[in-house]
C-alpha cells in the first residue's frame, strides 16, 4: 500500500510525518519525492547506500550534417533550440526531452546524449528501506527523477510512504499519482489553511481518499479543525506544538523512537490503515 504525504505549504511537517510513519511500521519503504530539497535521509541516516544516476535525453547537433533548415527550431515548443548565424544551439536546461527535433531532422544531424540531472539513493535504516531522489542544483525539473522513483516502487508490496514536495504543481501531482491514500499535513495558521484548501482540491481532482493531520496545534480555536468539520474531512491526528519534538526534529532524530511520540505516530498509522480498509470495503 502506498501513502502519499503532502501539504501545499512548506514546513508543515510532511517529512516529520512521513519519516515517523515509516519508522513505526514494522517493515516499510520511505520514498523522498521532494527531490529539490530531500531531507528524509538526514533522519534515517541509511547505510549500504547505492546510487543510481537519473538521465534526461538531450539532443546534440552534428554541425557537418546540419543543413540549417530550422525545422527543429520552429518545432520546439520549449524554445530549447536556436539557430544563430547558421549555428544550431541547444539549451539543455529547458529541453523537455520530447524527442521531436530528432524525429523531424531531414539530415539526421541530431542525436541524443544522456545528461545526468540527479540521482536516486537507496539504502536501509533498520527495517526501513530508504529511497531518495536528489535533483542536481541548477537543474530545472525534478519530474523525471520522481517518475524514476515511482517506477522503482511500482510493484512494492510493503507499506510505502511517499514524502511529497510542497506546493500543488506538476511535481506534487506526479508524486500522488500512484498513491492509495493521501495524508494532508496542515498547520493551524491562515497560511496553512489557505494552502490546505489547494491540496484538498488537488486530491479531489485525482479522486484519492484522504485525511488530515494537524501539526503544531495550539490551544484555542483552530482554523484547520473548523475547515475539516465544515468539509467533512477526517482528522487523523493532532500533533500538539511541542518544543521537545521541535528540538528532536531539528537535530535530525526520529522522534517516534521515544515516547510519547511513538504512541502518537503508531496511533496515526492505525487511523490511516483503518481509513484505507474502509475505503476498500466501500469500493468493493
Amino acid at each position, binding site marked *: 500500500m502506498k501513502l502519499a504525504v503532502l501539504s501545499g505549504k512548506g*514546513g508543515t511537517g510532511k517529512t516529520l510525518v512521513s519519516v515517523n510513519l515509516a519508522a513505526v511500521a514494522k517493515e516499510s519503504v520511505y520514498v523522498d519525492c521532494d527531490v*529539490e*530539497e530531500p531531507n528524509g535521509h538526514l533522519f534515517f541516516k541509511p547505510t549500504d547506500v547505492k546510487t543510481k544516476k537519473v538521465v534526461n535525453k538531450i539532443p546534440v547537433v552534428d554541425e557537418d550534417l546540419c543543413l540549417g533548415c530550422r525545422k527543429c527550431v520552429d518545432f520546439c515548443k520549449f524554445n530549447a533550440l536556436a539557430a544563430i548565424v547558421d549555428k544550431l544551439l541547444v539549451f539543455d536546461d529547458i529541453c523537455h526531452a520530447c524527442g521531436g527535433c530528432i524525429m523531424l531532422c531531414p539530415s539526421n544531424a541530431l542525436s541524443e546524449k544522456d545528461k545526468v540531472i540527479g540521482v536516486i539513493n537507496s539504502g536501509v535504516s533498520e527495517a526501513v528501506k530508504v529511497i531518495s531522489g536528489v535533483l542536481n542544483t541548477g537543474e530545472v525539473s525534478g519530474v523525471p527523477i520522481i517518475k524514476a522513483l515511482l517506477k522503482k516502487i511500482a510493484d512494492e508490496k510493503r507499506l510505502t510512504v511517499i514524502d511529497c514536495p510542497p506546493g500543488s*504543481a506538476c511535481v506534487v501531482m506526479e508524486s500522488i499519482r500512484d498513491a492509495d491514500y493521501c495524508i494532508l499535513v496542515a498547520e493551524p495558521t491562515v*497560511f496553512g489553511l489557505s494552502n490546505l484548501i489547494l491540496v484538498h482540491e488537488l486530491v479531489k481532482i485525482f479522486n484519492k481518499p484522504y485525511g488530515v493531520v494537524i501539526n503544531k496545534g495550539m490551544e484555542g480555536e483552530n482554523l484547520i479543525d473548523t475547515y475539516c468539520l465544515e468539509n467533512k474531512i477526517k482528522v487523523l491526528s493532532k500533533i500538539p506544538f511541542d518544543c521537545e519534538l521541535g528540538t528532536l526534529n531539528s*537535530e535530525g532524530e526520529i522522534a517516534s523512537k521515544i515516547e510519547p511520540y511513538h504512541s502518537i505516530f503508531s496511533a496515526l498509522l492505525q487511523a490511516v490503515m483503518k481509513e484505507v480498509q474502509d475505503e476498500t470495503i466501500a469500493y468493493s
Partner: protein
Amino acid sequence: MKQLLILSGKGGTGKTTVASAFIKLSQAKVYADCDVDAPNLHLAIKQTSQPKRNDFFGMPKAEVNTILCAKCDRCVENCRFDAVQVVDNNYWIDPYLCEGCGVCEMVCPVRAINLKPHISGELMLYDKDVIFSTAQLKMGSGTSGMLVTEVKKQMKSIDRGDELAIIDGSPGIGCPVIASISGVDMVLIVAEPSVSGISDMERIIKTAQTFHTKTVVCVNKYDANLKKTKAIIDYCQAHDIPYVGKIPYDKSAVEAVNNGLTLVDVFCEAGAAVQVVFGNTMEMLLRN
C-alpha cells in the same frame, strides 16, 4: 529599481513573514508573490482594491479528434510522457501528463491531434496605491516557471519610478525558483536552524550562485536550536556569504500573522529583530 528576492530552499521557514515585514518597514510600493503554487503574501498584506485578473496560458495541450482518429498507435509509441491513453479502444490525452511538445500532432498521419491553448492559472495585479503582482497556478499544472516569469513581468509593467521591489519566492530549487532568481539584484535566504534547514540552505545557496546572484542569509526561529544557528553562521563565514541577523521564535508573531498583521505591526521581540535584519539587508542591497 532594486529587486530583493526572498528564498529559503526549505518551506515554512518564514519567507512570507519576513517579506511582509520588509514591505511594511521599507514602505515599498512594488512587490510580488512568486510562490504561484501556494501564494500567501496577499493574506499578509491585505489590499483594499480589487486586482485586474488575467488568464495565464501555459503550454498548450494536445487533443484527439476521435472522429478522425485512425487508432494507429503512433502517438502512443512516440509520446515520451505517457500522456496518450487508450480506453476501450478510444484515444484521449491526459492533460495532466501532456507537456505540450507537439510530437503526437507531428506523427499523426490523419491530423486527428491538435494542440489547443490551455489555461494554467490566473494572474492578478493590484495597481492603485501600490503595485502588487501575484498569481495562482491551476492545480497540478506544470508551468510554474513560466507563470513566475509573468508575475515578474507584470510587476515591472508599471513604472512609477520606485526604487525598491520586494519579491516573495517559493520553496525548492527548481523551475519556479530559477525563474524568480533571474534578473533580481539580491537574494535573502531565510534559513531555519535544523538539519533539514541547513541542508536545504546549502542547496539554495549553490543554486543562486549558479546564476551569479548576490546572496545574504538570515536565521529565523534561531532559538529553536542554538547549535544549529551557530552552524549556519559558521557556514556563512566559511563561504563568504554575508549573514544579516537572526529572528527568535515568537508566539505573538504567529498570532499577528493569523490576524492578518505583519511582525512589525505588533510590539514583539521578533518584530524588533526583523528590523535589524531589514537594516543590514538594505545596506547590502544598496552597496552593490
